[in-house]
């Protein structure tokens, strides 16, 4: 028998992830001891994952406004104007903790959750991406996690029918105990067809839609707000189970229902399920909510109110409907064979009341549940920064061709085809660029415009210098969108860090955020949505600071788009932004010499903007259709990728430069373009006029990436090494 009025012991409070002072705050707020259900509700609302209590103070400092921002952070997803009455709706969210515990379901429900965030707002998802970080390849858990997470990401997105058009996968020992699974989704809607969670009107029906409530995921958000230790295997029941088939029907039913005008407010049930969605709708609308749990569709018998309020069963929605349209709404949901139950109503008393078996099991002030969550100004210290390297501390190599071959076949630089071939990147028929280039590009149906998007962060840079690393993540995403011809509009972020109660980890968070903010301001690239994932630690060791950025930009005309592939022999290769000299934190040092040291390359945001705008102008004018940004592995890696994609070689002249520096330096704000020989001189002249450094460095042709006396490597050998690593690692290769 369920006991709602039980003694609230310190152990019980601790098990709910609440600190003693937080419990005292609850006592002050409600003026009495909470019931068990109420304690569960507080733990669901006040955990780090849902309340952003450690990060809120700093998130407020981020730039979130811009001409094209329609809705910024605070709703299910951010909304930007893409012209002609269309808007793009997007967000990224982490499912790190559950994916480490149960990789397939953790990843799958991460994808499901972010898709729901997008279509809850009335937008049809047209693209997905993801950013995955795993432990070192040799770690005994890594292959298991890669196989499960990749299958889970694909399993949901493929069945739901959204193309996965890009992403990133990295390996590093600091993710041995905590993998990162960040899922991004983007949808399209009409500007006047956006739906929000704010309830309006007293006495209106609160309707439960979608899948039934089960016991899966109870306490998931609280689990995701703690460090891991040896007990993680016991936490599997806190991971939800995904059903993409139900989600697909939920999408179609919701969009169909929204067309009818019956929907007043809508909120999906994500973290903290029924609790969070109901409180959100009421609190935003200055209304109370009364829920009758006996009317909630249930998958299992004898569920307690505590379980129902904390369940994170997937594919569920809460709506406030126009009472006169209830029958119409129900018919839509019955057609799609989904549950539909009026399970409550809006009230004018600003209370959150839960009825179960005819009794009131919770009665809490609804505004305070959300607004009065604790907010911390966590102490932080300036993180330790890596020391700069002296020039003579950087070893040279005799043959840059051989070095390039080694880098292209290394875990972090090799082809991700083993991963992305498990994702449907073509469904919907609008994919203009699929994984393997600088950015994913998806046409907006029925128009000639397209959206470009790219997921980026370089965690080793962030570890060495969180501020510069934060800047670099934003700049690289902006650069990748630019490199395909996109005009960057806005971004979403997924801030993955360690334990915020440790001043060092909090310092990384604060400084990375300051770097992100500076880059966003300098590049006119506001943040419209995002997610924070803290406590990514196991046995006290945290992940590399990993603020993932997905930038989104618009291509006004998708026929004027650049790809990385060399297209014709004889094309001239121009380097925009000049030769580099920075090898601190480079993959050259890491993968050839086993060294992760030095400072990361500094990011000159004014230069970034100037060079990027120049390159974008060339693409938009139809003068350039081959472009690649320079990032990990510098010039050498970019040339190799362009050669492999175009199945043709390139002859490069390095002049008097030290070859290993010129080829592998990771200086920022740089691009390679390939152009017809007859326009190369004009482009160089235009660059000079614009104050952009540009030089001719080689010619497309032959069957090797050829650096002359400094070395050469056959494109076929690069291809073999590039394609070989991942299948060999996962054991077996493709059938």
């Amino acid at each position, binding site marked *: 028998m369920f006991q709602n009025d039980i003694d609230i012991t310190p152990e019980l409070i601790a098990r709910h992830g609440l600190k003693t002072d937080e419990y005292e705050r609850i006592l002050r707020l409600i003026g009495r001891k909470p019931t068990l259900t109420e304690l569960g509700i507080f733990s669901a609302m006040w955990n780090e994952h849902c309340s952003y209590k450690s990060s809120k103070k700093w998130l407020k400092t981020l730039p979130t406004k811009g001409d094209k921002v329609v809705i910024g952070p605070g709703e299910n997803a951010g909304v930007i104007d893409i012209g002609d009455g269309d808007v793009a709706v997007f967000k990224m969210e982490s499912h790190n903790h559950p994916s480490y515990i149960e990789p397939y379901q953790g990843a799958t429900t991460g994808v499901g959750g972010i898709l729901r965030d997008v279509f809850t707002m009335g937008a049809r998802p047209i693209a997905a991406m993801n950013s995955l970080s795993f432990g070192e390849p040799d770690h005994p858990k890594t292959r298991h996690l890669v196989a499960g997470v990749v299958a889970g990401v694909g399993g949901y997105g*493929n069945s*739901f029918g959204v193309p996965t058009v890009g992403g990133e996968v990295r390996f590093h020992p600091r993710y041995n105990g905590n993998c990162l699974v960040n899922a991004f989704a983007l949808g399209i809607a009409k500007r006047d067809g956006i739906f929000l969670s704010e309830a309006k009107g007293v006495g209106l029906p609160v309707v439960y839609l979608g899948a039934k409530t089960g016991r899966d995921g109870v306490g998931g958000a609280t689990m995701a707000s703690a460090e891991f230790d040896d007990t993680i295997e016991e936490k599997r029941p806190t991971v939800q189970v995904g*059903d993409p088939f139900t989600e697909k029907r939920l999408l179609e039913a919701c969009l169909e229902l929204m067309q009818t005008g019956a929907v007043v407010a809508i909120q999906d049930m994500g973290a903290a399920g029924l609790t969070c969605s109901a409180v959100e709708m009421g609190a935003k609308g200055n209304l109370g909510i009364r829920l009758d749990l006996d009317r909630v569709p249930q998958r299992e018998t004898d569920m307690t109110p505590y379980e129902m309020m904390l369940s994170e069963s997937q594919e569920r929605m809460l709506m406030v409907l126009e009472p006169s349209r209830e029958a119409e709404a129900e018919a839509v949901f019955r057609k*799609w064979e989904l549950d539909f139950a009026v399970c409550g109503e809006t009230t004018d008393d600003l209370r959150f009341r839960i009825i179960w078996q005819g009794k009131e099991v919770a009665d809490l002030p609804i505004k305070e549940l959300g607004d009065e969550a604790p907010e911390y100004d966590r102490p932080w210290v300036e993180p330790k920064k890596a020391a700069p390297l002296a020039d003579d501390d950087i070893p040279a190599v005799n043959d840059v061709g051989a070095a390039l071959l080694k880098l292209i076949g290394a875990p972090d630089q090799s082809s991700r085809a083993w991963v992305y*071939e*498990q994702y449907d990147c073509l469904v*919907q*028929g609008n994919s203009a660029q699929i994984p393997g280039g600088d950015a994913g590009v998806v046409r907006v149906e029925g128009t000639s415009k397209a959206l470009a998007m790219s997921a980026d962060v370089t965690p080793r840079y962030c570890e060495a210098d969180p501020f510069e690393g934060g800047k670099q993540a934003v700049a690289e995403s902006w650069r990748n969108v630019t490199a395909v011809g996109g005009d960057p509009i806005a971004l979403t972020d997924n801030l993955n860090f360690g334990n915020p109660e440790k001043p060092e980890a909090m310092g990384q968070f604060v400084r990375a955020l300051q770097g992100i903010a500076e880059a966003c301001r300098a590049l006119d690239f506001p943040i419209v949505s995002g997610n924070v994932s803290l406590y990514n630690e196991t046995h006290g060791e945290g992940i590399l600071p990993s603020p993932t950025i997905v930038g989104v930009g618009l291509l006004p005309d998708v026929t004027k788009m650049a790809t990385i592939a060399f297209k014709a022999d004889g094309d001239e290769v121009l380097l925009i932004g000049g030769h580099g000299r920075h090898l601190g934190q480079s993959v050259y040092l890491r993968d050839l010499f086993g060294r992760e040291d030095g400072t990361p390359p500094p990011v000159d945001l004014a230069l970034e903007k100037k060079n990027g705008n120049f390159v974008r102008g060339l693409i938009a004018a139809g003068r350039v259709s081959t472009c690649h940004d320079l990032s990990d592995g510098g010039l050498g890696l970019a040339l190799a990728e362009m050669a492999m994609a175009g199945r043709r070689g390139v002859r490069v002249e390095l002049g008097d430069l030290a070859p290993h520096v010129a080829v592998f330096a990771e200086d920022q704000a740089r691009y390679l373009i390939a152009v017809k020989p007859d326009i190369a001189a004009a482009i160089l002249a235009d660059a000079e006029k614009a104050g952009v450094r540009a030089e001719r460095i080689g010619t497309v042709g032959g069957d090797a990436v050829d650096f002359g006396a400094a070395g050469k490597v056959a494109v076929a050998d690069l291809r073999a090494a590039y394609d070989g690593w991942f299948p060999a690692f996962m054991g*077996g290769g493709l*059938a």
Partner: protein
Amino acid sequence: MRSAVVLFPGSNRDHDMVKALYDVTGFRPTVVWHQDATLPDVDLIVLPGGFSYGDYLRCGAIAARSPAMLDVARKAKAGVRVLGVCNGFQILTEAGLLPGALMRNAHLRFVCKEVKLEVTNDDTDFTRAYRKGQVIRCPVAHHDGNYFADPETLARLEGDGRVAFRYAEGTNPNGSINDIAGILNEAGNVLGMMPHPENLIEALHGGLDGRGLFESVVRTIAA
């Protein structure tokens, strides 16, 4: 050319198919809900790709028993042309309109990539716009495309020229027996294939090789 696309819960390439049919034929297909017991009179019925009923039980097994499929079977028997792509092919085998079965891919993973297809027979209602032996590009995107049939069935399919498409140039992505990518029924009016011609029909897709399939049907109807 009049066509209809049957929509099942979980279909997700219906939209791509409708676009392709409209683009190539100039006529918008009718979309039919799986609960409709009677399909309109059309020249071509298409079962699109996707994950009908979430691929639960077996891919296509539940959709094969929907009311609309009874009418598809009747009309197929009467000679109406039926095309099943990907999940549509799986539904056709589950409904008994095509022989054999589509098993899990040999490597047990979902695969989305471009493959090469050899047009094995150009004397069919679905392939006459191609040349026999022509190798075309075409994407695949499936988890269960590993075609299998018993030796007698296979011998009949091969002997009667009912293998319409074969994976070519070593690109078999799923372990299908005899590299089979698409087969016809005995009468030649029902085609099932795993690859997605509807995803290679315009410049944005990077190629037009998929158009031939739809142009073939248009040509057949016009003849």
